[in-house]
């Protein structure tokens, strides 16, 4: 088991290193931030001075080495635009992103699980098809479009929920719904197929032969086993929400890391882009590492393979 954990840990570190290098290179492909920072009337000398001040005149390799060294010591650098430590900027907003991620995950599970169970129990019927349609609609909609529609209906026309910003506890409902509904289809489908597998299992048939009521068979005996892959998937789901946060936070003016990264992209704030993406990647990789280790613990065949 220790060897298995060690291998997975090494893979995680390598993945993070690759991500860090890719982010470093890709953010520099977006152009020269000095062109954005400098006034249109700035002279070439003023721009060179700014470039030097920001350390952007050094060779790329040297910039990369410094960057990796800093990252290892958790020094994410200083924002080019605000001149504040990137770590502080991210830590100030990370709780908001996590809050939104958990809320979206809760909505996704609260909607996807019952619909999936309902569809599995009523498989092949019109009710099954209607449930699937509801979920698939969510998967087909772009989240930014859904976000705008939610804002229009609940924020502007009905005026029952704030259309944007983090203005109180109910501000989270619309952005969480916008993100959560998109993944409801995946949760619903997984629940449905997993539930159908379990409902076909011999021990369920035995329970029914023994005369147990359908409700008891479904909720007590089938659901427990059917939930295992869904719970595992919910970890992946959470990491998916981190990616989706960039769009949702921007549409809803939710002050999280996603909108911070987008600000960084708009202003070519390399340290901010790098720091934000690396933090998101680290969370993603760590979450997957945890799932891998959990699988290895639960199923010895995986770690032996």
């Amino acid at each position, binding site marked *: 088991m220790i060897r298995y954990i060690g291998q997975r840990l090494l893979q995680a570190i390598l993945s993070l290193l690759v991500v860090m290098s890719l982010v470093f290179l890709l953010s520099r492909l977006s152009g020269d*931030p000095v*062109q954005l920072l400098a006034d249109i*009337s700035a002279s070439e000398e003023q721009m060179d001075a700014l470039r030097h001040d920001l350390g952007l005149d050094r060779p790329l390799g040297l910039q990369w080495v410094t960057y990796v060294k800093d990252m290892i010591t958790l020094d994410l650098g200083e924002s080019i635009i605000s001149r504040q430590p990137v770590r502080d*900027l991210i830590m100030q907003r990370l709780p908001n992103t996590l809050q939104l991620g958990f809320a979206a995950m809760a909505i996704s599970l609260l909607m996807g699980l019952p619909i999936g169970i309902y569809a599995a129990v009523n498989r092949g019927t019109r009710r099954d098809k209607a449930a699937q349609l509801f979920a698939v609609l969510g998967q087909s909609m772009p989240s930014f479009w859904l976000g705008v529609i939610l804002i229009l209906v609940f*924020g502007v026309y009905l005026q029952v929920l704030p*259309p944007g910003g983090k203005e109180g506890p109910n501000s989270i409902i619309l952005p969480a719904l916008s993100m959560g509904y998109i993944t409801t289809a995946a949760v619903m489908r997984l629940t449905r197929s997993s539930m159908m597998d379990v409902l076909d299992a011999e021990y369920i048939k035995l329970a029914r032969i023994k005369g147990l009521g359908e409700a008891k068979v479904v909720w007590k005996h089938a659901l427990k086993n059917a939930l295992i892959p869904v719970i595992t998937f919910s970890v992946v789901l959470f990491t998916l929400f981190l990616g989706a946060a960039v769009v949702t936070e921007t549409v809803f003016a939710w*002050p999280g890391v996603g909108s911070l990264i987008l600000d960084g992209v708009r202003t070519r704030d390399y340290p901010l882009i790098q720091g934000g993406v690396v933090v998101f990647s680290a969370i993603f990789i760590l979450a997957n590492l945890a799932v891998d280790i959990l699988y290895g613990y639960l199923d010895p065949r995986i770690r032996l393979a």
Partner: protein
Amino acid sequence: MQTFGNERWIPGGAAGAEFTSMHSIFENLLTRDPETGANVGELAESWESLEGGTVWKFKLREGVQFHDGWGEMTADDVQFSFEAVGAEGSASSRNNVFAKISGYEIPDPYTIIVKFSSPEILFSGDINSSIIGTQFIYSKDAVTTMGDEKADLEPIATGPYKLISHTRGDRMNFEAVEGQWKLTPAFAEMTFIKVSEDSTRVAQLRAGTVDIIDIGVDFAGELKAAGVKMKPVPGFATVGITLGGQWPLQATYDPSVPWAQPDAEKAKKVRMAFALAIDKETVVDVALGGFGAANVSLPFYFQGEPWTLDEFEPIGYDPERARELLAEAGHEGCWEFTMNLVPWPGRAFLPVVGEAVATQWEANLGCKITRRPLDRAVFATDFRERTYSGVAVPYAMPFVGREPWQLLRLNSHSSSAAMLQYEDPVFDDFLDTIGSTPDFDKRVELLQDMGRHLYSVIPRIEIAEVFGIFAIGDKIIRWDTSPGTGLIHNTDYVNLVWAPPGQRVVLAK
């Protein structure tokens, strides 16, 4: 607000883009009258320019207090603030002006004399709190006692609001300063929230969760249709089409570009043809949502200004004459070229203007125009390197000061980094001469002459005056803004009737 997040609240730390966040907290020696746009005293009671603009004397207002008990504002604070802006390493875009200050004299705590190494005839524009990018007055005691790090988080100034809390890139909370020397704002608390998405800001205003939003002209039609109150700010910019390549002495000059060919007369006919082939009223309606006026022929030569002569009438719409002029210039028809579509910050309407103009040129002259959407930073390089010969560029020149030369010297002088008109020694001479003429009447005469010269050449096709636009909620009864200032400002006058200093008329809370 669409954007903020790079606030720096130490003297010399602000680059200029922080204007909106600073304007509520800080004040400067001068400001502009919201009605007329003329300079009026703010922290200075009176001022005068002496010795051809090399000496400026200010009489300060007595009894103005800094926030949180940091004492009275005096000439020492002014000197401290000016020195920081002019110091090496200052982030201010006005650093070059303040660096020319050669000395100060402080005969008494309420008088300061500023001396320059060369004439600065419009220094009043660099110390004016309603001109974007100018600098403000800090408390010397507060900054030196707290140190830069703390002062950068807790700005101490004299303005109508003080900063209570700040989440960078998200929100700023302000509290009205009771008994501020000018007035106590009507709203006891004020919050700035950053909302990048235009549609979300519009929704927030319509839902009543915010009271003022800044908005681009592209949303103006929707807002008007929804019955939202709009607050246009005239004189924010003049939009036009720059015809690239008019730099005959540069290595990148291409003599085959028809509007920049060596035959000046033919080149002018081509430019005139392109000007006549634009229905400017339609461009204002389509691309500016009606928030503009097709009444300019030269940048910042607005109607009613003393330098705007009747003879500078806007070039009309005459496609037939346009085709004749092209033929007279030796062109059977139009040709194929590129129109760059660059959304400049605060001027997201530019690609739509470009599209509208390109469509009209295609219809009226038969041109084949490739639309090239482009990042602003990429195009900034083209500007500087003069590498857009033969390319048409919609660009809106923003307000930097009342007199047109103040802007043109930055973006149209041969020695400027950017080039938005044409390189011409006569034009350069005008800009240099006007910039060193302290007498206003004489400057007006020179500006009229420069206007005549530009009008005879038409290096750039001016289309319209553009208004800055804010949308406001029902709570706001009146808000006095300054002409040309396109970012949110004068927050102390939200909901108030303009009143002289010391008086206050609250219409509603």
